[in-house]
């Protein structure tokens, strides 16, 4: 199953301002794709549309063969829970939960956190923060917090992982660690990863790069 956009247009405001112009893309299953572009090019808007968080003003965006706009609220949230993992740039973790509890939060949705606990711990070990499992986010560095967030996005072994500027708030060393983890998991789990980034180096590390210029798919010229 893949992600497909057919003539996707997104407009905001009144009078409507067009952010995305007639986007037609296909992201294949297991692919690691980066969406890059300058600020205001519409890359995050495109990510939110293909990741079910937003819907297009016109056109169709399907994921896993389904159109999120046609799902009920429960179906949509179940779909997100079971098939999608999110990593955001900021505001990633719940401050009142420990690292491990944050990782297990998606599993807690259906009371499956006990079954997933061992996997959660192994992910934290694998990411080099096994000893921080019982620490609260406030006690972790930015890089460690982002690794916890990636572990959380992987806990349900989702088919799709969407990352919005996952390295944006990190230094280059931690940014590299996060990128390596994403690439590794893409290879291991065959999850489809779509990552928004404005850093050309990281964008180039993906299997394929979609470059947006003023809301249109373009080829990188810089």
């Amino acid at each position, binding site marked *: 199953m893949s992600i497909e956009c057919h003539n996707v247009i997104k407009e905001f405001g009144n009078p409507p301002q067009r952010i995305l112009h007639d986007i037609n893309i296909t992201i294949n299953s297991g692919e690691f794709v980066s969406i890059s572009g300058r600020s205001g090019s519409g890359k995050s808007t495109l990510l939110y549309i293909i990741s079910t968080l937003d819907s297009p003003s016109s056109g169709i965006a399907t994921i896993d063969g389904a159109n999120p706009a046609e799902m009920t609220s429960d179906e949509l*949230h179940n779909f997100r*829970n079971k098939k999608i993992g999110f990593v*955001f740039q*900021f505001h990633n*973790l*719940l401050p009142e939960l420990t690292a491990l509890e944050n990782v297990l939060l*998606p599993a807690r949705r259906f009371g499956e956190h006990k079954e997933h606990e061992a996997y959660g711990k192994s992910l934290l070990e694998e990411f080099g923060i096994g000893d921080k499992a019982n620490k609260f986010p406030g006690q972790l560095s930015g890089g460690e917090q982002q690794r916890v967030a990636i572990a959380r996005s992987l806990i349900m072994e989702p088919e799709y992982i969407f990352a919005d500027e996952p390295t944006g708030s990190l230094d280059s060393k931690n940014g590299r660690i996060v990128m390596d983890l994403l690439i590794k998991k893409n290879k291991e789990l065959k999850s489809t990863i779509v990552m928004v980034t404005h850093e050309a180096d990281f964008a180039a590390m993906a299997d394929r790069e979609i470059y947006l210029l003023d809301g249109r798919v373009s080829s990188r010229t810089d």
Partner: protein
Amino acid sequence: MLFLAIRHLLSKKQQTFLILLGIGLGTTVYVIISGLQLGMREFLVERLMSNTAHIKISAKERLIDPKDIQKRFYPDDSFIDWAVPPSGLRDEAHIQYPQGWFEFLREQPDVLGYSPAFSTNVILSRSEITLPSQVVGIQPNKERQVTDIEKYVNVGSLDDIAAGGSKVIVGDELLKKTGTRVGESIFLSAGRGDKVPFKVMGTFHMGVKEIDSTMIFAYLEDVQKLAKSPGRISSISVALANIDLAGPLAEQWSLMAKDKVESWDVANANFMQIFKIQDISRIIITAAILVVAAFGIYNVLTIMINQKKKEIAILQSIGYPPRMIMELFLLQGIILGCCGAVLGLLIGHFSNVLIGSIDLGANSALPFGNKLIISYRPSIYIIGFIVAVMASIIASLLPARAASKMTPLQIIRSEI
């Protein structure tokens, strides 16, 4: 969601504590006020109203009307200017035709029993001591069908005066004042005759100072003889099979005679009125406090939701639907309500135990001794709990609903 709700509350300990205190305080005040008011009410109902018959037929006091006299003596409408107009009671109040009432009451299917009584003010004397008191003449066999007086006879029995023969049962406080013991005699004088000796057969204690220190029970005919008013009846107490009929029957019977016919609730209308005022004041005070506490919950949750916007976005993006977001904040309101209510009930209960144990001194003006009577009836605690929790749920509904309406994208965009 319970897990997360508890974590949210624990992460804001100070806010949580203050809100718990607010709800707790509201509940505490409710328990204390209810305990005091209902304690007093239970006492009054038990001690005063249980001695009141379902229906009481009593004599109407009739005043002399100068116009009546004028008509009788000067029927030709001539102008009379009284130097001193006639005034005062026509005679001592008594039921005009008691025999008629007895016959009527015997025929009534709803009447379980009736008891005639005659009461008069007397002077009690014993050696050098004279005390004003009231002697009530009853027929014990009939009286026990209509009131619970017998329950309060602590020495002797009502049967001891049933055969007549100048015997009395005296309020224990009154007997103590005269220095008389059971078995000895006291003298009663009704004002229009000599002092008559009466043998004290026992005492009663109703727990109401006004009654225990002034009242004497004797056989009906003995009292009539003492007051030189043979056959006179001042009241008839009636017991009904169904107390709910008291009002309508009293109204119906009052049309049949000139005597005053009152049902128990009308006779105790002042108490009923006090109870109503107490209820209203209790509800207003408690409502005011709970409204303040509810606003506290509303404010705290609204602030918390603003602070937790990012978390709401994360939760929705990882599959928690709006109804679970609503549940998360509603649960916090319920937890605050339940814990605050339990805290308030405990503080209220122990405060009442403390208040109930305070000795107000032997000379307190209370009608029931030197300690306040507190009610601990379960309904106070159940109502207090339900009201506190309901107030909390209502207060958390709006913020919880607002949180559930947020979408992850709205939050993410507002954060950028």
